[in-house]
């Protein structure tokens, strides 16, 4: 029986909220944005049919507050909730609460989330299904003493991860005994603050592995397919920076084998909607890392090489509608995504916040820009630093790399520092160009801050001219970011 959905609440923010609104609009669905107080200055807020403020800036009181989201969605007259990624997207209790309130949760069932999303249960399921796993400890005993003992048993290096985690939060590396206590406690704190549960598990750290993941999709008839692979080896502190589809590292045989394994575990978990099965590939052998029971940040690269719309597919599946036809889907060309973070690469990547000035994304064939903030919006310190994603498609990987470098150079973001110079350095690095990078790529080649480049004579002349002209002055209304008007002292800082 088909479910009628007329209005979709979005329990998220930033670029993914915009992405969901686009898909809803194309399907003729109205939207209700459930937002925190500071997020009134965002593109999704301006686009949504309705907006409901569900709480203050702190995500625990807004985006992570199940009751506030349910109340907001009901008040907004929504009959479904899309959780986006992060926040409550992998929270089984939330999925349950949505259904209990008489709305449709756009995603897998609470049962599937528990079985696959909880990394500990997922490992048990994978073991039963015969999938290769990374050695580790995923026991219920979460005492510091026990965890420290297990770390010793596994042998260094060991990685400690949030059981409910994702996106690099609640994840710490333990290289030697002296790191163990601080790393475990820090992971527990981050896990509690980001996911509401401090439960962690331990894994042997594979130190020359590639991160390869498979997009899976379960349609309303119960059929689960895989939609090929993405490589996300370029990570910093376990946070992905550059993703691509398909992986330059897989042989056809390996691709088939891993794709089948991905579809198999999703089928075991009775998966419905969009999900991702993550693997680590080292020395030609793959190990299951985790299953993400939600849309991924990097879903656009899959969309680009396959010509699919995963968010629309999620919504159609939630309505029990037909999604994919029986045509064989074969990836074509190559797609790369770069995550644009509001941070200063010349100061080791520390977050940069403030009033956003002019932003220009250079449109062109095979380029796609996903962003949630525009000129006049404030980039606040409360949430994830990702402010945009730049995605390109071209016929081959070398051409896609070249297109991405060009596109990033033409991108203009005024008001906050971004990692764009860092992204360009990575894209130009021989190991990235060869496609042989591992998850330790950043740590190996870019361990610290980027050296700030010397200013050229032309740049100095422009600065001199600019200081005389004071072009297009914008001032923030918020005192928190206003800088004191002090005399010019003439030092430059590259962005």
């Amino acid at each position, binding site marked *: 029986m088909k479910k009628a959905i007329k209005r979709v609440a979005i329990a998220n923010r930033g670029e993914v909220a915009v992405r969901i609104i686009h898909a809803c609009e194309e399907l003729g669905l109205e939207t209700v944005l459930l937002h925190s107080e500071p997020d009134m200055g965002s593109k999704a807020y301006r686009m949504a049919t309705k907006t409901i403020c569900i709480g203050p800036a702190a995500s625990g009181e807004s985006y992570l507050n199940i009751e506030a989201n349910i109340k907001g969605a009901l008040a907004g007259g929504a009959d479904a909730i899309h959780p986006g990624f992060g926040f409550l997207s992998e929270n089984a209790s939330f999925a349950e609460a949505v259904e209990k309130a008489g709305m449709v949760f756009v995603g897998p069932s609470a049962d599937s989330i528990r079985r696959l999303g909880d990394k500990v249960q997922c490992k048990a399921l994978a073991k039963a299904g015969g999938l290769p796993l990374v050695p580790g400890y995923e026991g219920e005993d979460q005492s510091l003493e026990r965890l420290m003992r297990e770390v010793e048993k596994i042998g260094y290096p060991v990685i400690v991860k949030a059981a409910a985690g994702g996106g690099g939060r609640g994840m710490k590396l333990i290289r030697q005994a002296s790191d163990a206590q601080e790393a475990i406690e820090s992971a527990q704190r981050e896990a509690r603050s980001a996911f509401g549960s401090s439960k962690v598990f331990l894994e042997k750290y594979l130190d020359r592995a590639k991160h390869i993941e498979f997009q899976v999709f379960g349609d309303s008839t119960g059929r689960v397919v895989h939609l090929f692979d993405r490589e996300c080896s370029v990570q910093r502190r376990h946070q992905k920076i550059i993703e691509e589809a398909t992986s330059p590292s897989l042989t056809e045989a390996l691709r088939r084998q891993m794709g089948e394994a991905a579809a198999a575990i999703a089928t075991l978990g009775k998966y419905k909607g969009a999900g991702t099965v993550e693997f680590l590939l080292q020395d030609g052998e793959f190990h299951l890392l985790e299953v993400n029971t939600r849309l991924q940040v990097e879903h656009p690269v899959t969309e680009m090489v396959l010509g699919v719309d995963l968010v629309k597919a999620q919504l159609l599946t939630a309505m029990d509608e037909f999604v994919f036809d029986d045509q064989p889907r074969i990836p074509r060309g190559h797609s790369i995504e770069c995550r644009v973070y509001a941070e200063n690469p010349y100061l080791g990547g*520390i*977050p940069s916040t403030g009033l956003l000035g002019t932003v220009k994304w250079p449109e062109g064939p095979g380029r796609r820009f996903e962003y949630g903030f525009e000129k006049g919006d404030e980039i606040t*310190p409360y949430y994830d630093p990702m402010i945009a994603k730049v995605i390109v498609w071209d016929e081959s990987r070398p051409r896609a790399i070249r297109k991405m470098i060009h596109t990033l*150079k033409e991108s203009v973001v005024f008001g906050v520092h971004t990692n764009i110079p860092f992204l360009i350095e990575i894209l130009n690095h021989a190991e990235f160009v060869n496609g042989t990078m591992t998850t330790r790529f950043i740590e190996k080649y870019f361990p610290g801050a980027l050296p700030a480049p010397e200013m050229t004579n*032309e740049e100095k*002349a*422009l600065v001199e001219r*600019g200081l005389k002209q004071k072009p297009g002055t914008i001032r923030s209304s918020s005192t928190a*970011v206003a800088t004191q008007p002090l005399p010019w002292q003439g030092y430059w*800082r590259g962005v």
Partner: protein
Amino acid sequence: MMILKTRVAGKDIEAPAEFINGILWIHYGGRTFATEAGPKKKKRHRAGGSSGGGDLEAPMPGKVTKILKSVGDSVRRGDVVLVMEAMKMEYTLKADADAKIAAVSCRVGEQVTLGQTLVAFESESAEA
């Protein structure tokens, strides 16, 4: 936003530029530059980096989540003194040199601003 125009070595060049809260932003030749107003740049502390020998200052706006040392404690170079959180990530601030904690001027849970002094050090040798 406006377009800056100037002439360098006989060549006319132009670039989009904007002043935002007293900082001049320019995009030219595939790069964006910010030029700040203000006194000589203070040494900034890097996330996961060190304190540069002086007092420990917040390298970004954010929340103090853990203070590991108290007034009077001796710290060794590389010891974690304080943990901050911003944009959902934790950053550890470490001591850059062997020293003694002279003052802790922040509390756990406090929202601090960029450059705010969090912990003051005094050198141990001065006491001896």
